[in-house]
């Protein structure tokens, strides 16, 4: 009993450093999928984009932006949630969401890395593109804004935020002998848990949150401008693209955070920390954003069907009753079902984790479909010049790379959970 107690005392909280059979199986599966993705990517790097389903626009009869760009937009959207929730907690002091703040920040960092990799996967010569961007890029271009604001600025700001909010836990864990003690000491960087240091950290995180929130809106709007400023492409050019991107980013991001919070709650046995109230807060936030996005979608449908130009008419026909109709209506059904579910829960005030997770899954199915529809149909059907209608079908290489990215993200989150507390420590857990 004494030995057991001592062993328990030496163990780090939340299963850190302990590899269960289930975790090892999960890790091995994710590594296997990532390796397949890498193999597919090297096939593409060696032979060119011809091994994918991507083809030239117009005379090529295809789409130059496909699954990679759709998932780039999706991953960047997911990044919205984490830092927004973390910032809202700091600014408005929503204490019930404190336990999900760090996993939100982590989700932001991981999804931004995946977004950057997705856009690099779309390039036949990624290294050349990176050098040219920094040497010749012009910030007036939304493409530059996307890379500098979203990838560099937003990712770095999120990393700084994650670091500042994690130092206290690192300092606490550094006091306990463990295989990660050196790492914790390094991360703590001499942190001393004094009232003065806490005041400093509160001030630092508050001002970082204030600086990040406008950056977040600019960053997500800029991704929208990549499409919304292209006057020669029916379906893309429009003022609703930027706000639509911001709102759908929030929807998919909050949905992902709900799913991650449920998994973490189960895996780390933190049921008492991550309460139903936390899920209820996230679900209410999700419902608000979802209703705004559904309004945008209704406006979009009305606009493209009311009195569209000939080119817009071809595109809207493909979306509403043609090639892409099953994806479009599938997305609408998913989003509306999630809205109905959340509204019912809000009216009855009986929030459950299962309902929140179901809504999170539904909105992400809808978000992926909507991202695909934003990227692809305007290239295959939105022609102002007299080109024939094109087509695009992603092949195994693209699917393998995208699944590989998802697996890489799961590995990053899984490893983080085994090295550092993904749920901020309570005083009692010191």
């Amino acid at each position: 009993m004494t030995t057991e107690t001592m062993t328990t005392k030496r163990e780090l909280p939340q299963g850190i450093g302990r590899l269960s059979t289930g975790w090892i199986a999960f890790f091995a599966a994710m590594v296997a999928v990532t390796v397949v993705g890498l193999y597919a990517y090297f096939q593409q790097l060696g032979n060119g984009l011809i091994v994918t389903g991507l083809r030239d626009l117009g005379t090529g009869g295809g789409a130059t932006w496909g699954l990679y760009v759709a998932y780039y937009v999706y991953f960047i959207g997911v990044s919205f949630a984490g830092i927004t929730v973390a910032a809202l907690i700091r600014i408005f002091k929503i204490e019930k969401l404190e336990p999900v703040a760090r996993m939100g920040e982590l989700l932001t960092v991981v999804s931004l890395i995946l977004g950057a990799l997705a856009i690099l996967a779309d390039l036949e010569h990624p290294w050349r593109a990176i050098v040219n961007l920094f040497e010749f890029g012009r910030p007036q271009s939304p493409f530059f804004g996307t890379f500098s604001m979203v990838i560099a600025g937003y990712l770095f700001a999120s990393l700084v935020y994650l670091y500042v909010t994690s130092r206290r836990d690192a300092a606490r864990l550094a006091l306990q002998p463990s295989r990660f003690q050196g790492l914790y000491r390094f991360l703590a960087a001499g942190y001393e848990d004094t009232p003065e240091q806490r005041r400093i950290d509160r001030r630092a995180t508050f001002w970082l949150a204030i600086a990040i929130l406008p950056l977040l809106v600019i960053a997500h709007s800029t991704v929208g401008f990549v499409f919304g400023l292209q006057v020669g492409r029916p379906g893309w050019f429009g003022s609703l693209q930027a706000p639509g991107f911001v709102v759908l980013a929030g929807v998919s991001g909050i949905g992902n955070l709900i799913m991650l919070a449920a998994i973490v709650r189960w895996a780390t046995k933190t049921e008492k920390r991550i309460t139903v109230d936390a899920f209820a807060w996230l679900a209410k936030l999700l419902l608000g954003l979802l209703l705004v996005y559904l309004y945008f979608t209704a406006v979009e449908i009305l606009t493209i069907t009311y009195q569209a130009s000939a080119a817009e008419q071809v595109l809207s026909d493909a979306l509403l009753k043609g090639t892409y109709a099953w994806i479009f209506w599938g997305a609408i059904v998913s989003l509306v079902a999630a809205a109905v579910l959340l509204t019912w829960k809000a009216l009855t005030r009986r929030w459950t984790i299962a309902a929140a997770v179901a809504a999170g899954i539904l909105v992400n199915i809808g978000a992926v479909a909507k991202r695909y529809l934003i990227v692809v149909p305007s290239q295959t059907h939105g022609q102002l010049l007299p080109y024939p209608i094109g087509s695009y079908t992603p092949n195994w290489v693209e699917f393998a790379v995208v699944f590989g990215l998802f697996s890489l993200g799961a590995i990053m989150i899984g490893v983080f959970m085994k090295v550092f507390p993904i749920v901020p420590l309570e005083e009692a857990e010191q």
Partner: protein
Amino acid sequence: MTTRGWITTAIAVVGVGLMVVSYLFWTTPACNTTVACSNPRVPFAAGIFVLGVLIAFSAGAFYSVYKGGK
């Protein structure tokens, strides 16, 4: 203001300054009429803009980590 506050402000100002100068002046092409002069006035000005973003946000980490006195 404390030493921490002064240095943090200085880091943030340097970062934002680099962003503003590179955005408004260095990345601006000398002309828009020929390809020859359509590059940014300063090579890697876009990279300098990104560097400014990184420096500006590193002020937050400095503010938290700095251990100097008032």
